[in-house]
């Protein structure tokens, strides 16, 4: 067998095993909407850990973070900080979201906005922003799979056929088994990812430099500026670091799928305990950084940093091992991508289409429409991934600039009685509009500060100011009391 054949067979084997586990997880359960989206609200600490680790550690962590360590240097360290601090923030919001979610039967993030603020247009807008923010994130995953397969085939298979295969598998997988499948495939995915990260993070510096310490010593000697901020970039300094870490750690659980994952928990305490242990998983990423930094000296001059990790693995290890790393990488893209598609489809069917166009649809019909939407979304993201080329980190930060705008509405909605619907709507519109404007006009970062963060500040200011200027309402327009009041009932 040629090296490319060995490598691709290994990848395919790993993806097949992962997919089989996903199908088996869904076999013996009746899949109503509640089971499909929130797994019957019965996940304990272990399943929640797996589900969240499954969603959070995407191919961004694998290829994007190492790609930036290679091409940008120091600024990439923001990833270690934001992942850890995202869990710190989650400690104070997820148990509360879970509590109102259980009381009022919420399944999605948009349900939260609909029930807290009693305005279906606000809820629909939240859906649209959520779905739109998923697009770059999904595109990131598919681009990742494309990179993996083309490097693993020793450039024999193009990225387009590779991404097409990934989408077909992905859609079949989500179609069959819903959220429970994702938690179980995560077992395979996370085990492989930890093994892959440790072996390349330790192995690559060892093979080329004799150890991690020797590698950093060589890099500090040859390219000292690369290891600190702003690294190889002109404008990603400390102001960018602080603003980006705040933007992404506050926005971490504002992703509709991460937000909705809290509804699968058995109790609020489960989520609190989870927030304590999850940061440890971030240590895996440190090893991926070691491999990324090592490739700066091993493979100088690559134009696309996102290819650095796999190319250095291909140069350092036998083909079967590249296959294992590639398989881990492929699952690391597909598991989160399937949950993004699942979430976006549920949002579209349940929170956008039904309330606005077909109020009499039954839950079963919504579940059917959601499944049809899965296919549509798979195709749309495939088209985008084929026709665009941006670095993986830029795609992620674009999505964050969108979803973090939900933060004021969520946090003030939980903790501040005075906040009003008009204020949240106005803040969200202003935040999203300014983020989109700054990014499309290439003003990110603006004066060295992340554009998404500036938009978030504007959003917060508007919510606070308008809330204080508009009269508070205690009941929404359908006569439902606010979750807040249920708490004290």
């Amino acid at each position, binding site marked *: 067998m040629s090296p490319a054949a060995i490598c691709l067979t290994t990848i395919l084997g790993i993806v097949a095993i992962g997919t089989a586990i996903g199908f088996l997880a869904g076999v013996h359960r009746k899949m109503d909407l509640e089971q499909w989206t929130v797994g019957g609200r019965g996940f304990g600490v272990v399943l929640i850990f797996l589900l969240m680790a499954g969603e959070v550690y995407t191919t961004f962590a694998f290829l994007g973070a190492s790609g930036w360590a290679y091409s940008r240097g120091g600024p990439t360290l923001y990833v*270690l900080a934001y992942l850890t*601090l995202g869990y710190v923030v989650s400690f*104070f919001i997820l148990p509360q979201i879970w509590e109102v979610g259980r009381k009022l039967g919420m399944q999605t993030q948009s349900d939260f906005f609909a029930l807290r603020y009693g305005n279906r247009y606000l809820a629909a807008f939240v859906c649209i922003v959520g779905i739109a923010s998923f697009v770059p994130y999904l595109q990131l995953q598919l681009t990742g799979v494309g990179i993996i397969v083309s490097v693993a085939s020793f450039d024999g298979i193009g990225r387009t056929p590779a991404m097409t295969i990934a989408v077909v598998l992905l859609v079949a997988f989500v179609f069959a088994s819903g959220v429970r499948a994702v938690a179980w495939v995560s077992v395979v995915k996370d085990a492989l990812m930890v093994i892959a990260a440790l072996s390349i993070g330790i192995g690559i510096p060892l093979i080329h430099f004799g150890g991690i310490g020797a590698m950093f010593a060589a890099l500090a000697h040859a390219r000292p500026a690369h*290891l600190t901020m702003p690294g190889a970039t002109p404008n990603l300094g400390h102001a960018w670091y602080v603003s980006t870490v705040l933007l992404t750690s506050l926005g971490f659980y504002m992703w509709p799928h991460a937000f909705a994952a809290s509804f699968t928990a058995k109790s*609020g*305490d489960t989520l609190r305990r989870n*927030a304590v242990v999850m940061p*440890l998983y971030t240590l895996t990423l*440190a090893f991926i950084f070691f491999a990324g930094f090592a490739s700066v000296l091993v493979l100088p001059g690559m134009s696309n940093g996102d290819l650095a990790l796999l190319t250095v693995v291909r140069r350092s290890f036998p083909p079967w091992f590249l296959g294992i790393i590639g398989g881990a990488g492929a699952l690391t893209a597909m598991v989160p991508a399937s949950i993004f598609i699942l979430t976006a489809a549920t949002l579209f069917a349940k929170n956008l289409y039904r309330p606005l166009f077909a109020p009499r649809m039954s839950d079963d019909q919504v579940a059917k429409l959601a499944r049809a939407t899965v296919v549509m979304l798979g195709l749309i993201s495939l088209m985008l991934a084929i026709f665009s080329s941006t670095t993986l980190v830029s795609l992620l930060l674009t999505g964050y600039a969108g979803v973090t705008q939900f933060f004021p509405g969520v946090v003030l909605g939980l903790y501040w009685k005075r906040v009003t619907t008009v204020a949240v709507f106005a803040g969200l519109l202003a935040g999203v509009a300014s983020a989109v404007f700054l990014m499309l006009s290439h003003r990110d970062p603006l004066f060295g500060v992340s554009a998404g963060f500036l938009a978030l500040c504007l959003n917060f200011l508007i919510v606070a100011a308008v809330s204080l200027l508009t009269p508070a309402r205690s009941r929404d327009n359908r006569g439902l009391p606010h979750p807040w009041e249920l708490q004290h009932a």
Partner: protein
Amino acid sequence: MKRPSLAALLLALIPFTAMCFSVSLWDRIDPMLLGLPFNLFWLICWIVLSCVCMWGAYRAEAARHRQDGPPA
């Protein structure tokens, strides 16, 4: 909604200060510790120390929730 305790909030502020706001104090290469540039070493340490802080916050919150009767 019940607000978190001051103790838990202060404990949560520690990792934010250490990993985010104080960046200009630790973003340098030297001294290299355990073979790592100082900024990378600092962040890796704080991943672990953040867990310790949040464990403290968990103890503070769990005690409060027990006082209210069965855990939510």
